[in-house]
């Protein structure tokens, strides 16, 4: 039986992850692009870690960290009444960590591509870093912002290992599409699995196509050349 809940959960998860990561990614990308902090490379390595780690490794440690048996999980449970194991909020936190490099790397390259002299010009005009970020930097790196957002969204839609570890397979709570497909295959319902899968393929292809189309447009909404 094809259900709508997995679709809804997937889109909700991807949407929330993208928004949260954008808010976190802008300052982090800015810092990585402009800071002269000596051990910056360590932070860079940490941010990129989810790219190379098997999702199960990440999921495993998140599961341990979120568990009410352990310090972090106990703290969240006691003071915020927040349970992150096998819950939707847990998926959001896990996805934010898992997709971090997909948002931060494009934003960092976006910041790096801005000529340094633009910053100097804005500062000598009395503009603070914050105003310069909002009025000069971000408007001139819309390409990077779009790429970061699309990659994050798409990557979250495609998550499986981390979700299964942290969220399990609970209908209407943590059963996103990728898990639902796995579930149907386990139950030998290949027809339903196929329908889910086809929809996912079509959706992913469409999102990427639209992104590349916009990126290739000259004089588009994204660039000013």
């Amino acid at each position: 039986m094809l259900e709508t809940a997995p679709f809804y959960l997937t889109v909700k998860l991807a949407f929330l992850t993208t928004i949260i990561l954008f808010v976190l990614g802008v300052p982090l990308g800015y810092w990585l692009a402009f800071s002269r902090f000596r051990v910056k490379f360590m932070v860079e390595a940490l941010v990129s870690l989810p790219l190379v780690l098997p999702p199960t490794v990440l999921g495993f440690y998140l599961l341990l960290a979120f568990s009410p048996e352990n310090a972090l999980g106990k703290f969240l449970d006691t003071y915020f009444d927040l349970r992150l194991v096998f819950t939707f909020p847990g998926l959001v936190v896990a996805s934010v960590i898992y997709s971090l490099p997909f948002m931060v790397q494009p934003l960092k390259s976006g910041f790096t591509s801005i000529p340094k002299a633009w910053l100097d010009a804005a500062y000598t005009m009395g503009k603070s870093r914050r105003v310069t970020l909002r009025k000069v930097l971000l408007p001139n790196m819309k390409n990077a912002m779009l790429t970061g957002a699309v990659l994050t969204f798409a990557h979250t839609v495609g998550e499986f290992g981390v979700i299964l570890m942290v969220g399990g397979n609970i209908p209407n709570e943590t059963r996103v599409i990728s898990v639902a497909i796995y579930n149907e295959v386990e139950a030998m319902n290949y027809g339903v699995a196929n329908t889910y899968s086809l929809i996912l393929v079509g959706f992913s292809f469409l999102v990427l196509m639209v992104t590349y189309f916009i990126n290739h447009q000259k004089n588009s909404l994204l660039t000013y050349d």
Partner: protein
Amino acid sequence: MIDLQLKKRLTGAGGDIFLQIDCQMQSGEIVGIYGPSGAGKSSILRMLAGLMVPDQGFIQVGEEVWLDTSKGINLRPQHRNIGMVFQEYSLFPNMTVLQNLEFAMEKGADRKLTKEMLEIIGMRELADQRPQLLSGGQKQRVALARAMLRQPKLLLLDEPLSALDREMRKNLQQYILQFHRDFHLSTLLVSHDAAEITRMSERLWVLENGSFVYDGEPNLYFT
């Protein structure tokens, strides 16, 4: 009066040089800084602007101390009353010509001034164009006007005309001199063009290997 004492080790393509200068300029003067590339000319302007911090230094403009490393004073660029024009224009492509000018204004400042400035640089018709569509000379006129809008005490010009052809240069030189006079500025002009410095400035500082080897009239040095 502007009092300038700077010490800084600079790392360049040709190895390290030790910049060490101690000089004064009068208010209303226009001083040209000349010297081979990599001598540290731009670094002096950047330190004046607060974009670069010297290892040791003291900068006083009029009554205000902008930098005193011995007392830990270092005004941020935002708080130094300067106008700066860069070789590469640095206009913001996401804003029109007019918006570029308006961006420079303080919050709540009189917007009439931007319109007047557009008139002065003869670009009223191009107010709504994006800067990418302008010629090099037009871009630099906008950049100059933008630097003037904050009514700075000190105008810093970092090779502003190097990317322009002869005719454009002459035209821009006129604007710079006009602004310098009309706004009672003190102006520092970095250039590697001897003719330009002779034409523009009353006084010349020649920088070689990090220190001034000449301070006087441009004519006497270049003949």
